[in-house]
C-alpha cells in the first residue's frame, strides 16, 4: 500500500481551477519527482497534501496519507499530523526561519508541539536532528540565530525541523532552487540519505529535470494543473509520449545556434582590478576591516566574442560586473572598453558607458511599474549627448521592440501586462536601444522557466549575429554558459582560477574548484536526446 495516495484531486480558488484531477502516489522509501513550470500546480499539490491552502481554496477528490483521509480531517487533527507524520521543506531558506529565535529553539519546537517533553529533552533531540543534517553542535551550537548561517546551512535547519520526528513523508518544494550548484548537490545528497535511512517517502518538487533525474525513483510531469506523464525515472526519458514532456526535455538541453563571428580586436580589457569594501567596525574606535571582493582580476573580451563568467554567490562576480559597468569605482587596476577607460578621474565616462548595456536577473524588479514600455526602453538614452527626439525616437523604440520579437505598439503598455519571458525581452530591447557593442547578461535567464529560457537564448544568439554584439554572460548555471559562450572564466573568492574555451574547461577542468563545480552540476542521463 502506498504511503501517500492522491486521487483525482481538483482544486479551485473562486472560479479559477488550479488542479484538475491530479493523481499521484508515493510508496514508503520512494522518491517521487514532480516537475513542471511555474503555474503548473506542482506547489499547490504539495500545499493541498499538507492542507495548508490559501483561504477560499476548495479541494475535491481524495488525499490519503498513511490511511488518513486528509480532506475529511478537522483542523486539530491536521495540526497533529503536520510536522509529525509529514514534514515540509521550502524553496527560500533565507526567509523560511524565524529571525528572532535560535535554531535550537526552532527545531525543538517541532518536537515540543507534538510530544510532552521538557525543554531540555526537546533541545537534546533537536541537537540530534541537527547532527543528522550535518550541522554538528561543536561548530553550529543550538544558540545560533538564522542570520549567522549561510543559505545552505539554513536549508539544513529547515530540513532538521521537518525530519526531527522522523515523519513518514517529506515534501520538498524546490529545496535547492535558491542555492549554488555545490550546495545544491550537498542538499540533494542529504535528502537522499535521509530517505534511505528512515525509509521515508519523498515528494520532490522541481522545475529542473536534471535535478530530479539524478535522485528520483519515479517522475511525474505536470502542466496546467494536470499530470501529463508519469513513469520510472530510469526509463521515462526514453518512453515519454506526451508532446509537452518532449518539449520540456528538448528545452532543458537546448543549445542555441550561435552564428560564428570573426573575432576582432580586444573590446573589453580588465587589468588587475581590485575592489575592497569597508566592513563594520569590530570595536568602537578600532580600525575598519576591509573585505577584498575582487582580487586582481584580468580578462579580455574580443569583439564578437561571447564570454562566460562562472562562480558561486559571494565569489565577486556581481562586484566585477558593477565595476565594468562603471557603476562603482575600483581601488586598483583599470577597465577599458575599446581602448578607453570606463572611469576618467573620479567620474564614469558616459561616452564609454553607452557602448555597453546590461540585462539583470529579475524581470519583475528591474522595471519601474509606473512607466510605459516606450519610456522604460529609452532609459539608456540619458547616456547620449543628443538623444533622438520625435519621430527618430519613436523609430528607435519600434526597432528595439521588433528586434526582440515584440510589436512596436507594445510601447504604450505597462510592464505588468507582460509575462516574465516578455519582460526579459523588454530588458534586452532596453539594452539594444543605444546600439551597444557589449551586453552584460547578469544571470539574465536564471529566473525563467526552461522553455522560455530556451527562447531567450535563441533570441540572444540571433541578435549577436544580426548586430555584431559581444556578450559577457555572468551566471552560476554551467549548462547555460555551456550552450551560449565561446570561452569561460571561473571565479572563486575574488580571483579567476581557470580560463579557456568553454567546451574544454567544462569537459576537462584542471583547477580543483572547477572540477568541483562541474561534478556538482546536475545532468540529464546520457543519451536521452
Amino acid at each position, binding site marked *: 500500500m502506498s504511503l501517500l495516495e492522491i486521487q483525482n484531486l481538483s482544486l479551485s480558488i473562486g472560479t479559477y481551477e488550479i488542479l484538475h484531477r491530479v493523481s499521484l502516489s508515493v510508496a514508503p522509501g520512494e522518491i517521487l519527482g514532480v516537475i513542471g513550470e511555474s503555474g503548473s500546480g506542482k506547489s499547490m499539490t504539495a500545499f493541498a497534501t499538507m492542507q495548508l491552502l490559501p483561504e477560499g481554496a476548495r479541494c475535491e477528490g481524495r488525499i490519503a496519507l498513511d490511511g488518513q483521509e486528509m480532506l475529511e480531517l478537522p483542523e486539530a487533527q491536521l495540526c497533529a499530523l503536520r510536522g509529525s507524520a509529514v514534514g515540509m521543506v521550502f524553496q527560500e531558506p533565507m526567509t523560511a*526561519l524565524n529571525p*528572532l529565535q535560535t535554531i535550537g529553539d526552532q527545531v525543538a519546537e517541532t518536537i515540543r508541539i507534538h510530544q510532552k517533553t521538557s525543554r531540555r529533552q526537546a533541545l537534546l533531540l533537536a541537537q540530534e536532528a541537527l547532527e543528522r543534517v550535518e550541522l554538528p553542535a561543536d561548530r553550529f551550537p543550538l544558540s545560533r540565530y538564522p*542570520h549567522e548561517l549561510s543559505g545552505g546551512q539554513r536549508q539544513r535547519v529547515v530540513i532538521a525541523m521537518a525530519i526531527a520526528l522522523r515523519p513518514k513523508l517529506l515534501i520538498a518544494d524546490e529545496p535547492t532552487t535558491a542555492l549554488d550548484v555545490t550546495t545544491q548537490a550537498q542538499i540533494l545528497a542529504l535528502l537522499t540519505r535521509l530517505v534511505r535511512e528512515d525509509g521515508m517517502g519523498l515528494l520532490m518538487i522541481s522545475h529542473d529535470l536534471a535535478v530530479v533525474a539524478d535522485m528520483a525513483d519515479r517522475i511525474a510531469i505536470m502542466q496546467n494543473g494536470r499530470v501529463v506523464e508519469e513513469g520510472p525515472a530510469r526509463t521515462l526519458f526514453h518512453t515519454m509520449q506526451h508532446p509537452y514532456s518532449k518539449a520540456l526535455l528538448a528545452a532543458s538541453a537546448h543549445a542555441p545556434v550561435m552564428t560564428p563571428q570573426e573575432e576582432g580586436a580586444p573590446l573589453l580589457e580588465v587589468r588587475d582590478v581590485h575592489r575592497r569594501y569597508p566592513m*563594520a567596525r569590530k570595536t568602537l574606535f578600532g580600525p575598519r576591516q576591509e573585505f577584498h571582493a575582487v582580487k586582481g582580476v584580468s580578462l579580455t573580451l574580443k569583439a564578437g566574442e561571447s564570454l562566460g563568467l562562472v562562480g558561486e554567490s559571494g565569489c565577486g562576480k556581481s562586484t566585477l560586473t558593477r565595476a565594468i559597468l562603471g557603476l562603482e569605482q575600483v581601488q586598483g587596476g583599470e577597465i577599458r572598453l575599446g581602448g578607453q577607460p570606463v572611469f576618467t578621474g573620479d567620474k564614469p565616462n558616459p561616452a564609454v558607458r553607452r557602448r555597453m548595456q546590461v540585462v539583470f536577473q529579475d524581470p519583475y524588479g528591474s522595471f519601474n511599474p509606473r512607466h510605459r514600455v516606450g519610456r522604460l526602453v529609452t532609459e539608456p538614452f540619458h547616456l547620449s549627448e543628443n538623444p533622438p527626439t520625435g519621430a527618430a525616437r519613436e523609430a528607435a523604440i519600434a526597432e528595439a521592440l521588433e528586434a526582440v520579437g515584440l510589436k512596436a505598439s507594445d510601447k504604450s503598455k505597462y510592464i505588468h501586462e507582460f509575462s516574465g519571458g516578455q519582460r526579459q525581452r523588454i530588458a534586452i530591447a532596453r539594452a539594444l536601444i543605444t546600439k551597444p557593442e557589449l551586453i552584460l547578461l547578469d544571470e539574465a535567464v536564471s529566473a525563467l522557466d526552461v522553455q522560455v529560457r530556451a527562447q531567450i537564448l535563441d533570441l540572444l544568439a540571433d541578435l549577436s549575429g544580426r548586430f555584431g554584439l559581444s556578450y559577457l554572460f555572468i551566471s552560476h548555471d554551467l549548462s547555460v554558459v555551456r550552450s551560449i559562450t565561446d570561452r569561460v572564466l571561473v571565479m572563486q573568492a575574488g580571483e579567476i582560477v581557470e580560463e579557456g574555451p568553454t567546451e574544454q574547461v567544462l569537459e576537462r577542468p584542471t583547477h580543483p574548484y572547477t572540477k568541483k563545480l562541474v561534478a556538482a552540476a546536475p545532468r540529464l542521463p546520457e543519451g536521452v536526446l
Partner: protein
Amino acid sequence: MLRFLLTRLTSLVLSLVVASAVIFAVIEVLPGDPAAVMLGVNAQEDTLAALREELGLTEAPVMRYFHWVTGLLQGDFGVSYSYRIPVAEMISDRLQVSLPLALFALVLTVVIAIPVGIWAASRRGSAVDLGVMGVTQLGVAVPNFWFAMLMVLVFAVNLRWFSAGGFAGWDEGILPALKSLTLPAIALALPQASILARVMRSALLDTLGEDFVRTARAKGLTRRQALWRHAFRNALIPVLTIIGLQFSFLLAGGIIIENVFYLPGLGRLIFQAISARDLVVVESVVMLLVFAVIVVNFLVEVAYALIDPRLRSAR
C-alpha cells in the same frame, strides 16, 4: 550587547551636547540681545542694562553656554524672569502633572491598541476587522479637544462621575489625582490608540504573510500558535517605533487638552513662558523635552535589540 549599549550611550551623550548647543544658540545668541527680546521694543536703556547684568549677558557666549550646561547638570535651571522663582521648581511642579498624564495616556494607548490590532489582524476581512478599521479611522479624525469637551459634558456635567477640570494634587493620595487625570488621559489616548492599533494590525498582517509563519504551520502549529509564537514578536519593531514617538508627543503635546481641563502641565507652562517672553523658562523646558525625546529613543533602540538578535550584532 555590551558594545551595542556603549555605542548607543555614546551617541545619546553626543546628541545631548549638540542639541543643547543648538538650543542655546537659537535662544540666547542668534536674537542678538535676549534682554531686548524679553523687555520688548519700548524698554528703557537702564532696565535693559539691569536685566543684562541679572541674566549674566555681559560674559562671552561660550562661557555663558558653559555655565548654563554645568548649571543644568547640577539641577540649576536659572531663575524665571517673570515669576522670580527658580525654573527647576516650576518644571518639577508641572512634571508632577505632565509625566503621570503622559504615562497614563500611553498605558491606555498600548493596552487598547495592541489587543485590538491583533484581534483585527487575526480576523482579516471579517466584520471585526472592518469595524476596527472604521472606528480607528474615526478616532484619528475626531479632534481630541472636541472629544474632551464631549466627555466633560457627559461624565462631569451630566453623570457627575468626574470633575470637569483641575488637578487634585498628589497630597490627597494617588486615587483622587489619578481620577482627575482620567478624562484628559482618555482624550489624549483616543487618537494615539487609533493610530497604534492600525500600525499593529498592518505590521502583524505583514509578518503573518512571511515564509517563516508558513514554516511554523508546516511544523504543526495552529494558526493561533503561529501568530503568538512567531508573527507577534516580529511585528513589534514598527509598533515600538510608534510608541516611542507617541510618548514624546504626549509629554508636551497635551497643551490643548491641558487647557480644556485646566491642568497645570508642561504644555501650559511653555505656552505662558512664550507669551511672557520668559526665555529662561522656554530654554529649560525645550531642553528638558529634547532630553526626554533622546532618552525615549535610546530606550526604543535598546528594546529593538532585545527583540531582534540581528540588531545586537550589527554596528
